[in-house]
């Protein structure tokens, strides 16, 4: 179980203090598929990075399975079972896909095993396993390799930060399949930051974050109609339908 208590994250912007996360409280139960959603700039990605330890928190506590990990660094949190798929995957000159998957798995897995992880994210494994993780790969390919590194870790708490961002429509269909099947691949808790209705649809639980707070949290059945009924959702629907719905 992950417990977030009174978490605050402030940054300085041109000498002005900005509160990104404001005394946020959240509990994520074991084995759940939880999707965090909400408007842009609401603090979703910041929260994900605070859980991984990428950014330093201003105050509050993060507790994983009863252990206070607030003061632990990224490596220590990773070793305690937190994984993170970045929104914008990193390039590495000279490091091959198979090397990255081996580092992720924490052992020298066979090429065949590495290929299995790639196949799970919809990549034709033999074409990719020996490629370098560099800019010769497309955004969608890098994104799937990024997700494969989290699968290869197979830890108890996996975070995916906007897996759909930067992926073309065709890749997106495959990506949804990856997440539909992810519980077969990862035996643990899954936390996904997403705006996509199709990802929201496969969640056990949805958390809406707005202005640095948890605005609502509940089952898909409870939250989804609420989100789809907001003014912003109505606006999008209106645009799609050519303005035939009135607010």
């Amino acid at each position, binding site marked *: 179980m992950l417990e977030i208590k009174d978490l605050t994250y402030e940054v300085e912007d041109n000498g002005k203090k900005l509160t990104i996360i404001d005394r946020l409280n959240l509990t994520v139960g074991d084995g759940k598929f939880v999707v965090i959603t909400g408007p842009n700039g609401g603090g979703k990605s910041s929260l994900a990075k605070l859980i*991984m330890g990428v950014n330093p928190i201003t105050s509050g506590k993060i507790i994983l399975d009863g252990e206070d990990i607030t003061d632990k660094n*990224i490596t220590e949190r990773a070793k305690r079972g937190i994984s993170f798929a*970045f929104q914008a995957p*990193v390039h590495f000159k000279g490091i091959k896909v198979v090397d990255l998957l081996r*580092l*992720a798995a*924490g052992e020298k897995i066979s090429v065949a095993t590495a290929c299995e992880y790639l196949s799970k994210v919809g990549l034709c494994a033999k074409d990719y396993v020996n490629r370098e993780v560099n800019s010769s790969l497309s955004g969608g390919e890098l994104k799937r390799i990024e997700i494969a590194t989290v699968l290869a870790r197979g830890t108890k708490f996996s975070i995916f930060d906007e897996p759909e961002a930067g992926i073309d429509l065709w890749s997106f269909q495959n990506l949804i399949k990856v997440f539909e099947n992810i519980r077969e691949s990862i035996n643990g808790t899954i936390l996904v930051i997403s705006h996509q209705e199709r990802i929201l649809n496969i969640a056990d639980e949805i958390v809406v974050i707005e202005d640095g707070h948890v605005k609502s949290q509940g089952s898909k059945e409870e939250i989804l109609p609420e989100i789809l009924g907001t003014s912003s959702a109505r606006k999008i629907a209106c645009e799609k339908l050519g303005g035939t719905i009135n607010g």
Partner: protein
Amino acid sequence: MDEIQRQLIAEVADLHEMPEGAYNIRTDGELAARNTTSNIDIVTKEDKSGIDIRIKPGTKRESVHIPVVLSKSGIKETVYNDFYIGDDSDVTIVAGCGIHNCGTQDSEHDGVHRFFVGKNAKVRYVEKHYGEGDGQGKRILNPVTEVYQEEGSYVNMEMVQIKGVDSTVRTTKAELASNATLIVHERLMTHGSQKATSVYNVELNGENSSTDVISRSVAKDDSEQIFEAAIVGNTLCSGHAECDAIIMGNAHVVAIPRLDANNVDAALIHEAAIGKIAGDQLIKLMTLGLTEEEAEEQIIAGFLR
């Protein structure tokens, strides 16, 4: 050969036993072992220190190893090695120099290698530098490489100097005839107060000749690296030079490109990038469970692969 010399040879030539094929092993300024084959002859020069390596036309899949090791402090030598590579041959040449200096005097090996590459010949050349020993004496290597390529020849050079050499000035010049190709991959890591300079000058003289000079380097501590790549295009040709350096600590890295086109059909490109290890690379590897130091090692090892 003693144990230190054996270890140096293993470092620079990946040799643990006597190699197959032709070889010439030089230790502390003396010939230690030599083997020739029916296709590859090695002859000691009479007018100066060094050897002539003659490879018969049409020699296929043979190799020549010519490692040099210095294990005594205070040796300074200049050696001239000339390679005559016959038309249509396909060979691998492994050179390299390892210096073990425990003494107080400087040890220096300056190898001057000239390659005369025949028509349609294919050569893979590997040159590794390595230094060790905790003496005050410096370990110095100043290799000069000259490559003369005839029509249709292909030369792939791998130049590696990963650690332990205090001072290096590497000078490489090449002249290419029509349809000849030269590929250079340089990998360099300097640390402490080491200094390394690499100067390349490639002249593309024949139509459809091409070159690709790629340097990947890591400069740590207070070390200094200078990379100068000049490509001269005198005809329809293509040339590409790339310098990519990771800078760490208080190191100093200079990249000096020079493209010189004398013909409207010469297509020449230079790319250079110097920067520290990207923070997001470290963070990604740390999220996989590596410590910051382990992440740094992996990034450097990949970069210098």
